[in-house]
């Protein structure tokens, strides 16, 4: 499976790194290629999921991917963007964004429609490109970890988790057992908050705001628990290289074990409402179907992939601590519609609560940090973490306590092209619903 492709440039020389993973659950492996001149062979010719990343490489480093099927600029917005032509009687275009009607991230959607039916959707992103990877280069490891936690705010825990695991692998650091469990608790709280929010937001875009009103409250309860336990609602900068920045007090353990089952009980009432509301079912079942074969070809992970037959979850398949504590149940459906994407999240909500309770039950005593070694030699490490929208891959090169280079691959790189395919033949009015059920991120892949 294709995982990521990224590059580095040093004067007239370039190096391109390619990460791939074998089917059946192995950690990603990285191969590197020194470019010839500024050229390298395009992987996107064979793996369409690599095309956007190669376009980004061309923009960021001035390297050229030979044979790249779509060489248009991606992150570089200085020239006029040529959208793909759509030709046919009665076809017209609807441009949307980058500033949207709702409070969401900026991006441009170009719909070509015939009547109400979407013939083609093209997404154009890059609006939130802020040079994060460039800023990380040369920074002390701790500062770079804070930047990693701001690649995508909704996944700040998962990003910090992935980044520090890559650093710790590079430096051969073993973190204390208490730290490992606390990291797992934070990661599952983050998943819980996001899934509660998404469940509500998807129903809202199907014209059913009642579940959104309750979903938003459930999300808020989780954020307040996170703030009470770890001192920050989104738990930013709580996972740090070598350990965690805050401890969990005994009282907080009790608060979590009391509150989470109560939230789950409220959630089950929403599930019942979702199941029994025919008008809502009418909107979500069969809408925005992503074919499993396309999900596989485009490398979709997370709830989107699992709703379209991709039986993969990094917590189970690239097993990492603390997820050896419970057998991870991976919900997998083949219907690939909005409904399936909702149902994957529902199963994962229950699983996250079970995981947090089990982790609290085994929380060992001990220190919170292992100091990083004063090791000047250049090393590299990588890690994969299952965030709420899919697997996040992190690769880092460290040298003398500083980051020499890194790459953080968001699941959204694979979700946007899949959304373009899934939306074809749906009506314009169902786009917000389909889009929300994918919930692809912008900042995460604009980098």
């Amino acid at each position, binding site marked *: 499976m294709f995982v990521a492709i990224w590059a580095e440039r040093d004067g007239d020389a370039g190096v391109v790194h390619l990460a791939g993973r074998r089917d059946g659950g192995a950690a990603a492996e990285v191969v590197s290629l020194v470019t010839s001149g500024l050229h390298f062979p395009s992987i996107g010719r064979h793996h369409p999921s690599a095309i956007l990343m190669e376009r980004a490489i061309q923009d960021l480093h001035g390297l050229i991917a030979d044979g790249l099927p779509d060489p248009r600029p991606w992150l570089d917005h200085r020239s006029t963007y040529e959208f793909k032509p759509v030709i046919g009687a009665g076809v017209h275009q609807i441009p949307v964004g980058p*500033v949207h*009607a709702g409070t969401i991230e*900026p991006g441009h959607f170009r719909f070509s429609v015939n009547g109400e039916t979407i013939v083609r959707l093209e997404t154009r992103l890059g*609006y939130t*490109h*802020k040079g994060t990877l*460039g800023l990380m280069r040369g920074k002390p490891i701790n500062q770079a970890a804070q930047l990693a936690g701001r690649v995508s705010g*909704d996944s700040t825990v998962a990003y910090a988790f992935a980044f520090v695991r890559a650093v710790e692998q590079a430096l051969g650091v073993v973190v204390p057992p208490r730290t490992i469990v606390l990291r797992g608790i934070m990661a599952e709280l983050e998943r819980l908050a996001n899934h509660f929010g998404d469940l509500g937001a998807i129903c809202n875009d199907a014209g059913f705001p009642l579940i959104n009103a309750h979903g938003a409250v459930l999300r808020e309860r989780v954020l307040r628990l996170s703030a009470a336990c770890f001192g920050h609602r989104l738990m*930013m900068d709580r996972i740090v290289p070598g350990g965690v920045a805050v401890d969990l007090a005994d009282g907080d353990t009790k608060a979590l074990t009391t509150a989470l089952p109560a939230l789950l009980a409220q959630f089950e009432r929403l599930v019942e409402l979702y199941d029994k509301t025919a008008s809502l079912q009418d909107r979500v079942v069969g809408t925005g179907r992503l074919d499993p074969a396309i999900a596989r070809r485009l490398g979709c992970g997370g709830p989107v992939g699992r709703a379209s037959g991709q039986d993969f979850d990094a917590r189970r398949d690239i097993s990492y601590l603390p997820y050896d504590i419970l057998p991870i149940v991976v919900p997998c459906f083949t219907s690939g519609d909005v409904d399936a994407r909702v149902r994957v999240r529902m199963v994962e909500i229950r699983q996250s609560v079970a995981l947090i309770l089990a982790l609290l039950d085994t929380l060992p005593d001990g220190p919170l940090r292992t100091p990083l070694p004063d090791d000047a030699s250049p090393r590299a490490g990588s890690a994969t973490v299952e965030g709420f929208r899919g697997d996040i891959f992190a690769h880092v090169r460290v040298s003398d306590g500083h980051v020499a280079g890194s790459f953080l691959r968001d699941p959204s790189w694979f979700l946007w092209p899949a959304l373009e395919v899934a939306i074809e033949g749906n009506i314009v009015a169902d786009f917000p619903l389909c889009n929300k059920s994918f919930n692809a991120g912008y900042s995460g892949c604009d980098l």
Partner: protein
Amino acid sequence: MRRILIESLFRCKLTEQPPLITDAEKAALVGHLDRAAQRRLGRSLAIREVDAGSCNGCELEIIALNNALYDLERFGLKIVASPRHADVLMVTGPVTRNMRDALSLTYEAMPAPKFVVAVGDCACTGGMFAQSPACVGTVGHVVPIDLRIPGCPPDPTTLLRGLISLMT
């Protein structure tokens, strides 16, 4: 009737000159109207949010303002879909080069008078991205800021405090 109409056409106009109103009288009337309007309408602000390159952390907390616990709209504050309907432009992010034009266009599309609220460390100071060549720096480099609400991200209570202060 015809005769009366024809006579009217040729006769001098009956309508008199408008009464003279001094500038002071005019100002007093305008002031009175303003105060009355302010009393009735001034307790409400329509907010248009623009993400100018944030990590989306600020957006999450702005969205949370609409949940039942914070209930933003009870304060007369409403997030609206179009800049044409907005009194307040709420901006997050370190203003990426790729969002600079969209931000200033959104500001220009708003009717005056208008306020700009910079939300989050990135919008206020550039935050961790201040040194990035891909970013403009702060929101203040593109549109004039009236209120700053720092934080990474500011929590909903902090946001509410800032927004309520804007109305008083």
